């Protein structure tokens, strides 16, 4: 992953739950944000050990 690709996670997708216009959209967005944050935490841990 390039730095720019990794950094993009902090620009738009992370804010998604605040920007969804429907209740059901927000519910799904919250699930997906949790998935992304779990992924990013794992990536951070691996990069801490591996870079």
């Amino acid at each position, binding site marked *: *992953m*390039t730095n720019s*690709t*990794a950094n993009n996670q902090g620009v738009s997708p992370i804010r998604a739950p605040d920007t969804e216009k429907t209740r059901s959209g927000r519910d*799904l967005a919250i*699930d*997906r944000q949790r*998935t992304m944050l*779990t*992924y*990013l935490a*794992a*990536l951070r*841990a*691996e*990069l801490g*050990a*591996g*870079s």
Partner: protein
Amino acid sequence: MATPFAFPWYVPLIARLKAHLAAEPAPRDAAHDLGHILRTATLAQTLALAEGADQEVCLAAALLHDLVYRPKNHPESSKTAAMAAELVPLWCAETPGLEAKAEAVAAAVASHSWSGGGTPASLEAAVVQDADRLEALGAVGVARVFATGASFGAQLWHPEDPWAEDRPLDDKAWSLDHFERKLLKLQADMKTRSGRDLANDRQRTMLTYLAALRSELGTES
């Protein structure tokens, strides 16, 4: 315990490696760039410390393991480990401090590759193979598998049968297939105890990711 990367040959070797990469006719894909090489080197040093292996051999071999690169759909892709190993003696001979390690470094480079089918014949070779395989696992592995697929035109996954329930696996066409075809098998083939421990963590990360993906694709497709 040695400080990571404290060997006097490290800085000149990295400088030469960067020049080597910059001189290649085309940029490497994002999964096989300098970042991958440096992460593999750090992992190799971590494993070498834990296993009591020769740190210099492990570190140098990790830095030189992808000295030759071909895209994954290139006919020579499975031969790059052997091709890199042929260059290693000269690189070591021209790097003061590494001359005496050339043979061991070359052997570790030669056997590191999954597609090359090499079997490590030394503890140091096992460390380097495990370090490179760890790079294919976990959150890093997830990012790298899709980057690699994109580099040769593979799609993310089959639009109608992403989990290959009614079709043969084809990871040249669908990157998601690569988990089943290769990545999820790596954990069972780690050669060192510390490599297995790290692989277990990374396998869990991949399975968590795949479960989330399965859930999302179930909603949408």
